[in-house]
Structures are given as C-alpha cells and as structure tokens.
C-alpha cells in the first residue's frame, strides 16, 4: 500500500554522493543501499554517475562500475520505490536515456545551466515519448535573476516537463532568495516545483523548508549529507523535521536513520563537516562538485584551494567546467612565483 505523501522526496546520495567518492561506487554498495531505502519507503532513488548519465569521463572522473549496471541492479530490487536517473544534455545523450529506460528506470531529471533551458527541449520530448516521468531542472539557479529563472522554467514546462526543479548547485542561495524564487515559479507555472539544495552554507534543510512552505512539492535530500561539496539537505533530518511539522513524507524515520548510520556513513570518505573549502563553495557560488578537483589541483600546483574556488566564482564558471580548474591553478601558481 502506498503511504500518503504531502511532499515527494528524491534520495540523491547514490548520484550526488558519487562526486564525494570520485565515482567509486560498487554494485554491492548500491544494491545494499537501494534495498534499505526501498524498505524505508523512500519514493524516489536517484542512481547515476554524479554528473549524470554519460558522466564517466576523464573530465569528471571515471566510474568504477558502469552506471548502467548499477541502474539495472537498483531497478531489479526497487519494490515500491522508483529509480530515477539524471541527464545533462551536452554530457548525456538521448541514447543513454533510452538505455536507462530499457533497464526499467521510471523517472528522469533533465537539466541545464539556469539560462540554457532550450538545450533540453529534445531530451525532454524524447523522455516523454519513452514514457518516463520527466523532470526538468535548472542548475546554478543563484546565477540568474528571478525573472530569468521563471522564463527558463516556463520553457521546460512548454517542452512537456512534468515538474521543474531549481537546483542550488553551489549551495549559495539564502533562505529569502529561495523564497522569492520558488514563489515566482509557483505563480507562473502550472506544474510541480522542486528544490535541490547543497549544504555548503549549512542552509540546505532550512532552504528546503522554505521551498516547501512556498509550495514546492518535490525536494531532494542526501542521507548524511552524502553529496557533492557539503552534500544536500540531510534526508533523515529533513524527514524528522517534516514529521514534527505534520508534513507527510511516507518515509520511516527510524529506518532512514539506521541507513545513515549503518550503510551511508561507512561509504563516506570523511564525516559531513563544513570545512573551509566547502564553505567557500557556497560563499563564492561555485558548483559543488568542483571541490575534489580543486583540492587536487591546489596540491599539484602548490596553491590554496580557496583561491582557486574564488577565482572560479569570479569567472562565472558553470557546472561541468572542471577542466578550467587545472588551468586556473596553473595560472595562480605562475602569479605566485612572479610576485615580488
């Protein structure tokens, strides 16, 4: 029997968390996590490379396990949960999406940078044709004014998306900014609105609550903040808070707490702490998955990770531009050496 849900939560740790461990998920880890998430009553479980289908690359990190194998295994044990995948046009293709659909995926998130929605038209049309629940998303939503965000979200609605999410990919949005954005989206769109936060400024749960108050019906979380940068809204905390507020998620609190403790925590490279580098991601408005790449480049070129991240923010870098990190680190190193 399907439980009653006021808000639909998508658990993203098996996708966003991929960034935090340099895409090293094993089949066994994913199977164990999905089974437990299913038993906890989580409605949507996202499984893909961190950068979405086709993300396995030298640019973002090669997957240890073929994501299609992970997806296939997740689908085979999904129970009442739906397995969802993520696609960023320009990285993942329609062919990738088809393959996932053939494996039994039922839902897809298709996204672009907040100003580039028209690039998703073809993928959204195709996803609908494939019979997938199709959710458009706009990344780095802090980089565009509210009017632009609404205009781009409306494009995705016009392509046939069933819902549109705004992603705070940099964990840079403040609660009042989330409020005005979700409110505007609700005013101008007829479809469901979603919110995906990052915890770089320790605001992910707070921002998610604001989004829900403003009428967002879908939200993302990652158990134990297992996501890129500071992770996302901590799902088990969110479930507890929503329960206290009388908002039904249909997720069993004890069970999801146990998953955090027993399954997700051991997968994490480090405990969910907001370190100085993570804090800078939110402060500078930089794509959360740049974190590990910037750390590596800082080490290689002998510069401060924070200087790299600040520079990436200053140059208005968008999601996916990981190759610029080495370039900037090399440049900073040259400047340091030539300084008097």
């Amino acid at each position: 029997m399907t439980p009653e849900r006021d808000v639909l939560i998508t658990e993203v740790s098996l996708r966003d968390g991929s960034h935090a461990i340099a895409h090293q998920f094993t089949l066994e880890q994913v199977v164990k996590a999905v089974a437990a998430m299913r038993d906890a009553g989580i409605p949507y479980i996202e499984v893909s490379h961190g950068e979405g289908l086709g993300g396995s690359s030298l640019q973002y990190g090669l997957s240890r396990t073929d994501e299609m194998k992970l997806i296939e295994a997740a689908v085979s044990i999904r129970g009442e949960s739906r397995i969802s995948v993520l696609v960023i046009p320009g990285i993942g293709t329609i062919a990738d999406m088809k393959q996932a659909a053939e494996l039994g995926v039922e839902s897809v998130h298709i996204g672009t940078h907040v100003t580039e929605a028209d690039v998703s038209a073809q993928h959204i049309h195709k996803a609908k044709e494939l019979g997938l629940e199709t959710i458009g998303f706009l990344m780095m939503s802090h980089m565009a004014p509210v009017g632009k965000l609404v205009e781009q979200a409306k494009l995705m609605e016009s392509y046939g998306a069933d819902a549109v999410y705004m992603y705070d990919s940099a964990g840079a949005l403040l609660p009042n900014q989330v409020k005005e954005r979700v409110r505007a989206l609700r005013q101008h769109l007829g479809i469901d609105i979603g919110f995906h936060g990052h915890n770089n400024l320790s605001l992910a749960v707070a921002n998610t609550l604001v989004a829900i108050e403003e009428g967002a019906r879908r939200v993302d979380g990652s158990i134990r903040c297992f996501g890129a940068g500071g992770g996302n809204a901590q799902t088990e905390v969110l479930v507890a808070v929503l329960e206290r507020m009388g908002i039904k998620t249909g997720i069993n609190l004890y069970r999801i707490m146990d998953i955090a403790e027993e399954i997700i925590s051991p997968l994490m490279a480090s405990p969910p702490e907001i370190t100085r580098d993570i804090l800078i991601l939110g402060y500078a408005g930089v794509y959360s998955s740049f974190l590990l790449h910037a750390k590596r480049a800082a080490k290689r070129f002998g510069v401060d990770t924070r200087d790299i991240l600040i520079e990436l923010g200053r140059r208005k870098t968008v999601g996916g531009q990981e190759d610029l990190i080495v370039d900037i680190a090399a440049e900073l190193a040259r400047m340091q050496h030539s300084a008097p």
Partner: protein
Amino acid sequence: MSKLKAAIIGSGNIGTDLMYKLRRSEVLELTTMIGIDPQSDGLKRAKILGYETIDTGIDGFLERPELADLVFDATSAKSHILHAKKLRDAGKIVLDLTPAAVGRLVVPSVNLHQNLDLDNVNLVTCGGQATIPIVHAIGSISPVIYAEIVATISSKSAGPGTRANIDEFTETTARGIEKIGGAKKGKAIIILNPAEPPIIMRNTVYALVAPEGMDKDAIRHSIMETVAYVQNYVPGYRLRSEPLFDDNKITVLLEVEGAGDYLPKYSGNLDIMTAAAVKVAEDLARHRLSGKMEKGADQK
C-alpha cells in the same frame, strides 16, 4: 593564377563570415550569395559588396548553375540533405558546414590530402576541428586508447541549430575523434557558458595512450607542430599551457579566438568552422586547377 568560382548557400552568421574570408582568397572567387530571406543582413551585405545575390534558395541557384563550381553550405543539417543531392546532380563540389555529415568528415591537418577528389566534404563540428588535430598528433607518436574532448563555448555563439540538437555535436565529434583522430574510443562533451563579456571558446583534450615506450618529448613536439599547422588557417588557435602529463594521461588545454571577420572574436567555435572550410576548399580548388586529378586515387 585562375580561380575556381564559389557560392555560399545560407546567408546567416556563418555564411556571412565565410563571405568576408573568401574575399581574401587567392584560389577561390566568390561570385554568389544564396539565401531565402532578401532582408537578411548577409544578402544585403553581399549585394553592397557586388556579389550576385539569390533569395530563392537552392532552386534559384540551379537555374544559374554557371555561377559557381564550388558551393559552401551553411544552412542546416536538414536542408543539406536535400542540397547535397541537387548539387551532386549539378556536378558541384560541396563544402558542408552543417552537422549533416553526408560526405566524408575532413579535418585539414589529418586527412585533407587523401580526400582532394571528393565532391562532398563535411567539416565535422567546431569542437572536432579544434581537437581532432591534437588527438591525431598524439596518436601519431603513441597509440591513443581513449580520447575525450570538452568544448566550452559562450552561450551567445551557440546557434539555434546546435541548441536544438546537442547530441548531434557530442555524437558526431566522438565519431570524428575515433574515425579521423584515430583514438580507439572517443567521447565529447559540450558546455555552454553565458558569462558576460562572452568567453572565448575553450577546448580540453584528454588522451590515454599506450604506456609502453611513451615518448613525452616526441608527443609534445608533435602537438606543437600541429598547433602551428592549424594556426596557419586559424590564427587565434593556441595552447593555454604546455601539455600536461600524468602517467599515460595527456591533457591539452586550448583556446580559439576568432578572426573577427563578421562574427565577434569570442566565437572561435564558429570561426574555426569557416576558416577550416575555406582551407579545405582552397586545397580542393588548387588540386582541381593544377589538373592533378588522378583517376582511381580516391579512397572509398
């Protein structure tokens, strides 16, 4: 020296930029600009510059086929499929700048000389023109097991055609990396960045080579030579830094600044297509003019 007569079909940004580049050519004589909108900026400019203008598209040109022997197609993939057939029947040489890929994919530094007799040449994609030379340069020293390219372009320089079918870019480029670049497996990624002022086109090439007997100096030298070759027809093509070596992984960071003929300088992605098209067309024309058509030399 006599010149081969050329026409451009498609009076948009690409076609108009081509027109300015062809004005400088010593082997091609641009005679005609073909469009479908008499009000388009490209047709108006062509008229002012004294070229024949046709605003009834391909059929208008085919009524006066003597105007050109070589036609640049700067329309769309869909239109090109139709144009390719008609122009072939009319016996014209066609340089295809759309992603239709009807003809053989050509990258000047790699496979132009083997393909001088073709009558339909496709220029792959902007990302392909910028990166395949590098993949091939590396591969000419050490076998490339895997090559991946990331092209980052300014949002303003991504036209509606690219946006409506972004997979065409990733898939055609990946195919070019394998078929022309010689990598065993290829992958392409494209990113649009809306920053203002617009960013210059950036390309990153990652290549994994067979680790045995890898000669860093030879690879570095081969890359430098290729960059210099491409610079002959795309002056704004340059390395952002020395090639980076991590074990058997090679990373090459490139940027492409346009010549600013008609298109703004940041749109190196468009410039490298028009510049490569002119380069290929000129070599094809030289080959024809020098009468060196060796029968049967064409590879199938």
